[in-house]
């Protein structure tokens, strides 16, 4: 089981330590870890499981913060990793986002949260709803109060009821004047187009996100009109397995507020909304690059926030890139970033430029991969359709709303 968690800032400074068991882990392990990370370039490039001379380390990297957990004994590594991810999720939920200052400013809350989330190295309460009841998230009111009166306790003095109920993700005594449920399909398209321009792989990773505000203990059922297209699914704990097994409907008691009901995958799609045509020719120490982006199969909705990003190969000394639409930036780590936005009606966005190769190199022999980003509102490109949403228990009347959005996931074009 986990012995200790450290939170490290992006400069390797230990911001917090929380020991769980009697077998204390000395801070020097962080120094070792940081050295190791630096020798590998970056802690985001490190393996998530590292065997140090004294401990096994698990690390995840989120928004510049490294969550580092240590153990000395056998335990499921994924459990540690998932737990760290959960801690990161809860913290960013509490603090709005994650960064070094926020953690330091709210270190007491972080301590209290960690203390509730894990006991003796084994996860204790990780359900966000319960945590929120136990430890109040910082908000404007409490901040103002603490400034004015100097006192404010964020520790609740009663045990949340949900800890003992069979639906630990929901508090029972909820009252809303208007009952509403919003369902959103959030899809990400992963696609790979190889150097010949062939679509090698195209699939959708989607999530059904629900925002529910309903009185009492509602029992919802959600069904799709074409569940057969789903390749695989994963569920929030609230989803009952039986109804899904027998006739592919989702039956569940939702947590309050916003949550991810399920995630799904649709494989082997054939159409991608955009085309990206890179052309790279190199000769005599320079290299010409040109990129064309356009709509391929019009999804019927506007595609916006189109971006294109690629890493210049290390053998390139300098780059001079320009575009006829949008802006091109080259960041310090040789990442080129072309933000296009929407595709204009009158022209095809293109970017072109020259790259200067390292001296001695005639031609480019390694080629960048272009990562495409886009967003299409109001459509689920997988074609998944929600059939209906029913509420079994009272109140029978409630608002429901549906929406969908598709974004690019790992959408890559090789050159």
């Amino acid at each position, binding site marked *: 089981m986990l012995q200790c968690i450290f939170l490290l800032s992006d400069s390797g400074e230990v911001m917090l330590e929380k*020991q769980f068991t009697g077998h204390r882990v000395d801070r020097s392990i962080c120094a070792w870890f940081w050295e190791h990370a630096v020798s590998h370039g970056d802690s985001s490039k490190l393996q998530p499981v590292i065997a140090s001379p004294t401990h096994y380390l698990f690390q995840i990297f989120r928004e510049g913060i490294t969550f580092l957990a240590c153990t000395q004994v056998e335990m499921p590594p994924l459990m540690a990793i998932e737990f760290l991810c959960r801690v990161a999720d809860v913290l960013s939920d509490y603090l709005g986002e994650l960064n070094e200052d926020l953690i330091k400013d709210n270190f007491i809350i972080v301590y209290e949260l960690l203390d509730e989330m894990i006991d003796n190295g084994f996860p204790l309460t990780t359900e966000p709803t319960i945590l929120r009841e136990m430890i109040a998230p910082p908000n404007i009111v409490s901040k103002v109060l603490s400034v004015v009166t100097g006192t404010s306790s964020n520790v609740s003095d009663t045990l949340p009821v949900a800890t003992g109920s069979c639906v630990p993700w929901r508090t029972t005594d909820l009252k809303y004047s208007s009952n509403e449920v919003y369902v959103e399909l959030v899809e990400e398209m992963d696609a790979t187009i190889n150097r010949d321009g062939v679509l090698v792989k195209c699939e959708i990773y989607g999530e059904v996100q629900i925002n529910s505000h309903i009185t009492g203990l509602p029992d919802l059922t959600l069904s799709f009109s074409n569940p057969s297209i789903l390749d695989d699914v994963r569920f929030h704990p609230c989803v009952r397995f039986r109804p899904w097994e027998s006739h592919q409907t989702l039956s569940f008691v939702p947590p309050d507020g916003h949550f991810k009901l399920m995630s799904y995958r649709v494989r082997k799609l054939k159409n991608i909304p955009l085309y990206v045509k890179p052309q790279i020719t190199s000769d005599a120490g320079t290299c010409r690059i040109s990129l064309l982006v356009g709509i391929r199969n019009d999804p019927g909705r506007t595609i916006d926030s189109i971006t294109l990003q690629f890493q210049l190969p290390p053998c390139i000394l300098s780059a001079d890139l320009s575009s006829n639409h949008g802006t091109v930036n080259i960041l310090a780590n040789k990442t080129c970033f072309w933000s296009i936005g929407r595709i204009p009606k009158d022209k095809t966005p293109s970017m072109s430029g020259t790259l200067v190769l390292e001296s001695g190199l005639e031609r480019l022999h390694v080629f960048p991969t272009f990562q495409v980003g886009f967003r299409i509102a109001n459509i689920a490109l997988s074609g998944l359709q929600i059939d209906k949403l029913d509420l079994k228990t009272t109140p029978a009347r409630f608002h429901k709303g549906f929406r969908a959005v598709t974004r690019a996931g790992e959408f890559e074009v090789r050159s």
Partner: protein
Amino acid sequence: MFPQFGATAETLSKASTMVFRIGTDAHLYDDPDDVNIAPLLDSKFDSEKCEALKRLLALIAQGCDVSNFFPQVVKNVASQSLEVKKLAYLYLLHYAEKRPNEALLSINCFQKDLGDTNPLVRAWALRTMAGIRLHVIAPIVLVAVGKCARDPSVFVRKCAANALPKLHDLRQEENTETIEEIVGILLNDHSPAVVGAAAAAFASVCPNNLFMIGRNYQRLCEILPDVEEWGQIILTGVLLRYVIARHGLVEGSIMCSLHCKENSQSQKDGLESNPKFTFLEDNGDLGLYYESEIAHMVSQCYIEGPDEYLSRSSLLNKGSYESKSECFHSGESNEDVKILLQCTSPLLWSNNSAVVLAAAGVHWIMAPMKDVKRIVKPLLFVLRSSTASKYVVLNNIQVFAKAMPSLFAPHYEDLYICSSDSYHIKTLKLEILASIATDSSIMSILKEFQDYVRDPDRRFAADTVAAIGICVQRLPKMASTCLEWLLAFTRQECFTTVNGSMDGEAGVLIQAIMSIKSIIRQDPLSHEKVIIQLVRSLDSIKVPAARAMIIWMVGEYGSLGDQIPRMLTTVLKYLARCFMSEALETKLQILNTTVKVLLCAKGEDLLEFQRVLSYVLELAKYDLNYDVRDRASFLKKLLSFHLDSQGVERERNYVPKNKDLSCVLIECIFGQKTKPTPPEPYNHRIYLPGSLSQIVLHAAPGYEPLPKPCSLTCELSASGELATNSNSSVTDDLDTLSGSSDNESASCYSSQHSIRGSSGNGSGDVTGSASEDEGNADPLIQISEVANTYKTQNSGSQSGAADFGELLSNRALESWLDEQPGLSSVNTSEPSIVHRSSARISIGDIRGQVKPKNYALLDPVNGNGLKVDYSFSSEISNISPLLVCIEVSFKNCSSEPMSDITLVDEESSKDLDSADQVTASSITSQDDVPTVVPIEDIICLEPGQTMTRILQVRFHHHLLPLKLALYCNGKRHPVKLRPDIGYFVRALPMDPETFVNKESHLPGMFEYKRSCTFKEHIRELNKDEGESLLVKDKFLEICRCLALKMLSNANLFLVSVDMPIAASLDDASGLCLRFSGEILSTSNPCLITITIEGKCSEPLNVSVKVNCEETVFALNLLNRVINFLAEPSLTQL
């Protein structure tokens, strides 16, 4: 350079946050010690206390040691404010172990809080109290945990479950039993949340006590989907272990079927006709064999752990073991297996990747082949969750894919590499892709690989090229396609490396040549053209390692086909010409190759080659590098015969005669062609899926392979048979009897005595109906001899009860002390039989006074009036010297007669079926579990009657309580028998000289010493003073006390007692007692020496020394001796 870089660098953030920091604890973190913290802690305002505590936590967070505030913080635990409490707890837990004495101050507060009406307060108090980790308070915490385990609040019960590992971690042996009991209670809880935590406690407290799982197995399976995700991970593993131990591997699962196939050809034929196996066949026989080999290894590794497996497989013939493992299979239709698979399959849909992997592991090991497929999609889907879990999951998929490529073969597209993947993930994916490629998918995979080699990450490109080589090893059909591409690739690559000085490129090139080499090696003859092409490109390839490899190929395949030999002369000349400018490894390789070519040469080429070789040797002789010079002179010496052209001519004519030693030698070194080797054995270390060890590739501390298949079943059936028609009575409640326990025990002794004494006489003077039972003696307990010995022994032990009331039977005593038959008086007030020989005395009759300690096995309160005690007897079992004899006495304290009393091993009592496993039980007797030789049943026990039985147990040096089941009136009472290490030895008679001699052979690391204080003699001396009829020898009394204490707690032989001669009357320093024994299992002698210091009338300082070859045992024994010497004896109160 890049003017844009600087300009566009993101410099925002940090500046804008000032506003948001107001109202947070920012100032506390930034300057935690800018105020004096101490007065704040003592403030009467909660807010000030809070602030102080927050400042302390900030200091902790920053790594400062603020433990000096401990006393002040402890006070605040009593605060009414929950926030102060919480913060104080946080502080307390961080430092409690450092400041144990102060931490004790908080215990009262915790105990008060434990009674609070607010469950949150109770839970926090329990968590913190258990987290303090002090040995002293362990008993208090244990009681608290026990109470909280029955708390109405689910959350508190869950915290109780979490507290158990904390207690267990303190390693207090006396508590283990209670802890395990509480784990049992919590596992039985109806709330899934508690069960999850209890499973975690089980896994860390008593992972091998699988019987506990057996009791609740079905219910645990059913509750599994409702348990919290973290609990699911652990519980799945626990259930899997149980099923393996109980039922073994499943017929038709991957673990089983593949090595069955390997075993018997006939079975294989059967399987081939079976549709469910046909999908395995598409790889051809060789591939299949190779894969089944891996699968076999995987399953063996899971069960034995790779270290054991690898070491064994190198020593032993594998086949011999397999036949043994055959018996570990259970049918596909097994209910327990079915239910486990059923309940774990929805977990494959879990949001938590750890749960998915745990469930997949169960299916991988237990599911029949046709169902294993269902783990594939969930595993691949998990890859989308987070990069960290991606890495771990891929690591596991890699093993699955290697053992059963057909599983993942259709999903190769999912393993295509994204540019955003980290290097570790890329290599893992490559490896998996290479191992699952099939004839149908290889084309697309190769296409994909060709894209990868143009990746900017050259390390990755090199790996890709290597992966192509591995693909061809699996699919020889692809050899020519791949070679063609690789050749084209090297040409293009070497083009760039001419100018480039980059290491990465060189690596790719070397890897490419290596892949070509490995492909050619499989079938050199058909790839003759490739070799020629490679040699032709020699001029453009500049990387030394790559050149060396090509040159090696020239030497190796120089005589192949008909085209290569023709170009050899030119090639050699070319090599000789550029020898001077080559790098070291290439030079060496040129030397070797020239020699190899020369040896195979025929006809007119020979002379040419000789010339080249002598030229090269000459060059090498003056090389700057000594390695090259050495190689040259070495070769020259060896080849002197070949270099001499006349010699060669001569050899042609008289072949056998002139072939001298150096020729044979050179033939041996260079002449033999390396043969195409079969695919290399896969000897990676394989650990259980989802384990940490699998990721770090060594067994992490605490890693345990799966239990031995069916180990549990065999154990159950072993004594289950015997328990079939046993009954038992109901447990009742309450200590109403405890008040009279003194009386009770006294009367109990007396009645015991009367039985034993009389039967010891052998005169048939029997009270009650005890003798009838004995008459019925079933064949398992043997015969008269046992009965005799144990009776005499009993009477020996009984004589200790003389302290209570002189209830001795002299004759019984005599039968034991046969050397001194005349000495009947064992009166404590009289110095008995002292042979003063110089300073060495002997307390001859001490054996007679020995009374082994009685432990309660079942008290009448719980046993419906049946009282069962046991004591360890010093007698030696006649069944096996390894068994420890335990005397169990049954007393009916109720007013009704009892019937059918029997005592059996608990494990066995559960399994009452399976007559076919009786044979297996004999196997387990050598196994690592305590074995119990069952006692004969007591048919009937009248009220007030007492009967004794001898139970023989083999403890295997386990010090954990042994669980037994006592049946009485058809009711079952679980009871626990605590082993006593003092009886893991038997008395080994020897004289003092032998003792000293032996002792001198066991010095240093075989010697352990500890000391303690001994007080018991004081009371004894005082008591006698009161009577003071005789002037007593104090020394003697002390010796007697000590010896008695030793002998009644351990089965030892009193060798000698040495006394200081010139000592003053009251100074006991220098007294020395020696005891000897031998360990039951190994017969190693175990020598104990006790020396005393101090005054007679005061507590003595006793130092105990143990000399024994088995150091661990010796240490344990020493601790035990110290324990009982230091503890006051209850029987003498």
